[in-house]
């Protein structure tokens, strides 16, 4: 039975549409496309066949390739390996950057994908050494990986472009000395709603709870992620999002259980479709979805709104990390430095729909992208944002979440 359960888990994990994955999935109009998107034959995807680096650019030397012709990033002074192995969320790496890296360095990237931080950790634990060079955990999960010995400390002298990163995304509590992480992009947890159905203004968690328990009862969802859902009741009462205080968590429990009967779903995978079909019209979710719905080619979901609640919320950062047993560390360093170049950052942001952590890139992105509050939180609201630490080990939170799921 255990074996079967594990198989089911694997199947489901592969089938899940993560918050990133949806970026590609959003365009799916037909049932067929939906089904196809939900059931990839496997989690792996390789780079398209490319001429081998040795024939294309005379070997591993980056300087002999058409190195950095477009990018201002200087070519590294060290020998690169013949390939780079990237372990990433699905649809979370710009295909343009994939080809550009090969063009700039003559090193092809082989990409494999996962659907959750936990799936990645399981693969790293179980799969043996030297599977990948770079992975893309959420920042608080990087700390778990680092403590588990899965990451190697970065040699920052090899990453001069780190100076381009907005200081706000450095010295995070999980990695106070920036030993392990290179920020990729960032987003917020807040309130998403369909403007055509939610006509009263939604500005706060209080509005969220009031509407959910009142007018919008049965038309509201929350993402299936305790780290995000706990934010709402805790901030509603002015508590720290990372609190471990028993009484404060108990208050959050009461608040969540009062909300529970009014929920349409507790779901992280399918909620964009739910919003499109108006099966739910408001939810606690991640900002990228709002951007995707607003910019849907059909133009039918332009009314989608995004609120950073006035009581405050969390922001999360996804990070590039170098794995401890990376077989191609030089190529990986070249990549980590190169990817922080604004040109690459712009491509990444526009592809994934999330805000770049790179100050220089922000000035090069289209104005409507940068000024969209669903992508870049307006400067005035930045003070509302806090960093969440990994609380998955807190027993009381785990119990509350189980009770909440149970209803």
């Amino acid at each position, binding site marked *: 039975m255990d074996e079967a359960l594990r198989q089911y888990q694997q199947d489901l994990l592969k089938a899940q549409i993560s918050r990133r994955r949806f970026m590609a999935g959003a365009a799916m109009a037909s049932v067929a496309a939906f089904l196809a998107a939900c059931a990839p034959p496997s989690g792996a995807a390789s780079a398209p066949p490319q001429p081998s680096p040795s024939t294309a650019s005379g070997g591993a030397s980056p300087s002999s390739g058409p190195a950095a012709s477009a990018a201002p990033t200087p070519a590294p002074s060290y020998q690169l390996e013949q390939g780079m192995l990237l372990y990433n969320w699905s649809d979370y790496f710009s295909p343009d950057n994939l080809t550009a890296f090969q063009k700039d360095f003559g090193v092809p990237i082989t990409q494999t994908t996962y659907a959750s931080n936990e799936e990645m950790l399981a693969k790293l634990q179980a799969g043996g050494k030297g599977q990948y060079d770079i992975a893309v955990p959420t920042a608080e999960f990087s700390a778990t990986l680092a403590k588990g010995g899965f990451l190697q400390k970065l040699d920052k002298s090899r990453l001069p472009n780190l100076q381009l990163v907005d200081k706000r995304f450095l010295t995070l509590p999980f990695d106070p000395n920036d030993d392990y992480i290179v920020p990729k992009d960032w987003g917020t947890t807040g309130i998403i709603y369909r403007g055509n159905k939610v006509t009263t203004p939604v500005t706060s968690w209080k509005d969220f709870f009031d509407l959910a328990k009142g007018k919008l009862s049965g038309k509201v969802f929350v993402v299936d992620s305790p780290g995000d859902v706990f934010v709402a009741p805790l901030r509603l009462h002015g508590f720290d999002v990372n609190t471990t205080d028993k009484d404060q968590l108990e208050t959050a429990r009461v608040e969540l259980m009062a909300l529970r009967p009014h929920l349409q779903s507790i779901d992280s995978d399918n909620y964009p479709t739910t919003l499109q*079909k108006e*099966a739910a019209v408001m939810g606690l979710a991640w900002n990228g979805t709002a951007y995707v719905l607003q910019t849907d080619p059909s133009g039918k979901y332009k009314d989608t709104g995004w609120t950073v609640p006035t009581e405050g919320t969390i922001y999360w950062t996804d990070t590039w990390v170098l794995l401890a047993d990376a077989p191609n560390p030089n190529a990986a360093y070249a990549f980590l430095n190169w990817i922080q170049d604004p040109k690459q950052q712009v491509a990444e942001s526009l592809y994934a729909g999330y805000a770049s952590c790179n100050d220089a890139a922000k000035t090069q992105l289209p104005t409507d992208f940068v000024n969209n509050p669903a992508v870049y939180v307006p400067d005035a609201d930045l003070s509302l944002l806090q960093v969440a630490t990994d609380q998955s080990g807190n027993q009381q939170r785990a119990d509350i*979440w189980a009770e909440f799921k149970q209803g």
Partner: protein
Amino acid sequence: MTGLLVLPAGLWYLILLVLPLAIVVIYSFGVRGTDGGYTPALVLENYNRLFARPDPFILSLEIAIAGTLLCVLIGFPLAYYLATRAGRRKSLLLVLLVIPFWTSFLIRTIAWLIILGPDGLDGFMTNLLGQDVAFLGSPWSILLGIVYNYLPLMIFPLYVTLERLDQTLLEASKDLGAARWATFRQVTLPIAAPGVITGSILVFIPLMGEYVIPSILGLGKVFLIGNVLQLDFLGSRNWPAGSAKAVVLIAIMLISVTFYVWTTSRGRAGRDVSVL
């Protein structure tokens, strides 16, 4: 020689069943590591906390029993028809029963998400009644998904036993003056019993651990024992807590299935009827 015959299967079960089971039992006495996973220890805490929240287990049991009963009620007439009345169409009908299995289990379940969702049943009923209908996300939608997916597992063992039913026994019963219902009750049903038992076990045991169907059709709101285990292992990464629940689940399943087989096959031992 006899030893050699069971060697492959024996090794298989040792490596893939006994050893993993032993690991789960050992883990169930441990504690969660600071960053998740397992740290060796010898505590009973995971078992003590177990009974604080029995609801997911009770709901799983209810759904598994209801699902198994529905499979018998729907599967028996169909298997009976296939075995005794289908005639030349029998092969075609059997193939039709198998064909859905050619599609991935996951895709079949996600298809129900669309059939029942806002573009399907729920949307239709909402328009019809003028008020919100949410069948999807309720335990009933899970029951539907379960019966749909597990029905063939019930039909085939039933079909096999009913197919072997000796027609002369029915004739003898008729000659002895039994009406059709009496014949069915006193001859057909007892002969089909092993099929019912096998089918019930094949359906009930995986149903108790069912995780995918409630995850997809429950919209995250139906919380069964499989979802509890998933949350323990992947959500809070508390392997010992999850292991303790798995151990107790296995124990309860062993006891209840043994009890079920024992009560249903009691008194038939002399008739040389095998159960599985």
